[in-house]
């Protein structure tokens, strides 16, 4: 029988209002005193009526676009800022990795900074001494430990800071996008350390823009939009909803942006859909993906190349090809023209993908680009994550 794990963080109806003032000196304040001063203030709510209860041992991802309030929520949970309204209770020792090396003083040596930073994070001197060798071997900066940290490379700085932070044995670890630092080997080390934290039953709250990381590591995700909790539950579902929000915002941005004048041919629209479906349908692995592109031109274009590129949600190139590669000779066109790529038997991993379309001349000069001309979704696949789909099988071949 399992006992319900205790609640470590409880936020009740938390709101946070920020006031932005334009007058910041005594003179300006006096001049704009009273009612006049009100015009110099701008208020906005970074958090609105957030209720959140987090049980021990869970790993929670906070996601949302820039300015959605996730870092503010993390700071309120960590006690760094007080809420305007509502109440936050927490128990146990908290280590907030909001910025690595926040307490480092450039003029002190690495060793001195380790002691200072560890004590800021709540360790006593004796405890730090006990863990010093672990910290040093984790950071892997060797003899530089007795050098002033201002002479460190940025990588060494961050490694030392992370090493200190993870060795303070926090009950609740708050992580704000600090995992995107260091070289790959060190990142792996960090992720391993976080996994071992999970196994030890510690609670982790993670703010990340890497949606892959969230679905991979968290057992719960909270989606924030404009300071409100929009979704709270399964990471995969939260990520999917988040992508919808991002897509809506992108479309709003696109329609707001002024159109650039185009010379010599333009891409009017593009659609992506499975061959046997309609635009908006999911593209499951193994289907044929059709990308239909509509072009127009006012003068005759003798010699042209049409290119497509598919990016994943993080903006990494997943797939790209051009008519030049396919050795297709395109006849000159005038007026409107529709072309179509069909990608046979695609195996994209779960997530949202964006199609960029470019119109170029023979020498690769871009005549017109339509970034994120259209998008498609690949349905959730519980057996694997990543950008490539494959059916996994496993066999134990014995010893």
């Amino acid at each position: 029988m399992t006992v319900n794990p205790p609640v470590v963080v409880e936020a009740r109806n938390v709101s946070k209002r920020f006031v932005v003032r334009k007058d910041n000196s005594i003179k300006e304040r006096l001049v704009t005193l009273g009612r006049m001063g009100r015009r110099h203030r701008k208020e906005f709510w970074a958090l609105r009526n957030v209720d959140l209860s987090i049980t021990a041992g869970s790993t929670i991802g906070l996601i949302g676009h820039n300015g959605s309030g996730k870092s503010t929520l993390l700071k309120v949970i960590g006690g760094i800022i007080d809420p305007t309204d509502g109440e936050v209770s927490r128990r146990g020792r908290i280590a907030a990795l909001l910025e690595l090396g926040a307490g480092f003083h450039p003029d002190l040596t690495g060793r001195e900074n380790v002691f200072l930073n560890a004590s800021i994070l709540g360790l006593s001197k004796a405890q730090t001494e006990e863990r010093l060798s672990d910290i040093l071997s984790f950071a892997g900066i060797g003899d530089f430990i007795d050098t002033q940290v201002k002479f460190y490379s940025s990588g060494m700085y961050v490694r030392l800071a992370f090493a200190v932070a993870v060795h303070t044995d926090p009950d609740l670890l708050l992580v704000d996008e600090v995992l995107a630092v260091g070289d790959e080997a060190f990142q792996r080390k960090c992720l391993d350390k976080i996994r071992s934290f999970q196994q030890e039953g510690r609670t982790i709250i993670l703010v990340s823009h890497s949606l892959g990381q969230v679905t991979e590591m968290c057992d719960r995700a909270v989606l924030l939009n404009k300071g409100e909790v929009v979704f709270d539950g399964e990471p995969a579902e939260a990520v999917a909803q988040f992508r919808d929000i991002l897509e809506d915002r992108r479309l709003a941005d696109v329609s707001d942006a002024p159109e650039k004048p185009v010379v010599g041919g333009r891409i009017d629209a593009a659609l992506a859909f499975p061959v046997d479906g309609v635009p908006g349908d999911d593209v499951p692995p193994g289907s044929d993906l059709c990308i239909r592109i509509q072009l127009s031109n006012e003068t005759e274009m003798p010699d042209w190349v049409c290119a497509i590129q598919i990016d994943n949600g993080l903006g990494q190139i997943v797939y790209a090809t051009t008519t030049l590669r396919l050795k297709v000779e395109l006849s000159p066109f005038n007026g409107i023209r529709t072309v179509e790529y069909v990608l046979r038997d695609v195996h994209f991993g779960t997530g949202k993908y964006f199609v960029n379309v470019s119109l170029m001349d023979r020498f690769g000069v871009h005549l017109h680009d339509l970034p994120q001309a259209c998008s498609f979704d690949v349905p959730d696949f519980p057996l694997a994550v990543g950008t490539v789909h494959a059916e996994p099988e496993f066999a134990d071949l014995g010893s």
Partner: protein
Amino acid sequence: MVSTTSYSKTLSGVWRSLRDIHQHREMLGLLVRRDLKARYKDSALGFLWTLIRPLTQLAIYYIVIGKFLSAERGIPDFAIYIFTGLTAYSLFSEIIGGSTASIVGNAGLIKKVYLPREVFPLASVGSALFNFGIQLIILIVATLAIGKPPLTVELLYAIPSLLVLLIFGTAIGLLLAAANVYLRDIQYLVEVLLLILLWASPVVYSWQMVKDFAGEGLLLELYTNTPVTLAVLGFQKAFWVGGSETAAYPDDLLLRLVIAIGVGIVLLFGFQRIFSRLQGNFAQEL
């Protein structure tokens, strides 16, 4: 469970702040050491600079005020007299100056890590105390050198005087540290006020001169009962043996010092409340 709300209760709030600071006392020590170490790091003379500044000040006042403007007439052992006053005054001025800038100066930490924010002004108090200790040693060595060591019962005046400086310094320092976050003008205002304070306390002239000028009355009382003046007088009584025969002191100096301590404690209590009320928004205002 620890709770954070938008409000805090007065008495339990003070108690919690005290407990918080007590828990972080080791870190407080490290912060003081960081301040001291970092200040003169990479300079060839290092800690000697802590001595050079007050000694230069002493030399200037001794020569210009003492000799040229002949303020030393009627003040025996003028150098000791000045240095005693300077030691007391610079403790106060360093506490105020250091703590006013402390919150803004540690913005990086305050925005990213939760700590009881009182530790930063307190760390400034700590490093000011350290420098005060060094100056005090010089002072005592100097009194030994001229053969007038402060080995009288009057030496006990040093204790309430030091307390007055510490309590008022910490109280005002806390208030100004918090205010400086919201209005950076405070920092520059404080520099000016501290300069005025140096000349508004009997450091380079004697209390007798003020008495002769202002006469007995409200003005003299006002002047005498400012905490820094009281503390400077107390220090002079303790360490300036040369003046024990001739110098004039206000009546009931000890009583005045004790009352000042009482007032200071009330202020400290009140200003700590204001500080903790304001500190909730530090992270976003920095």
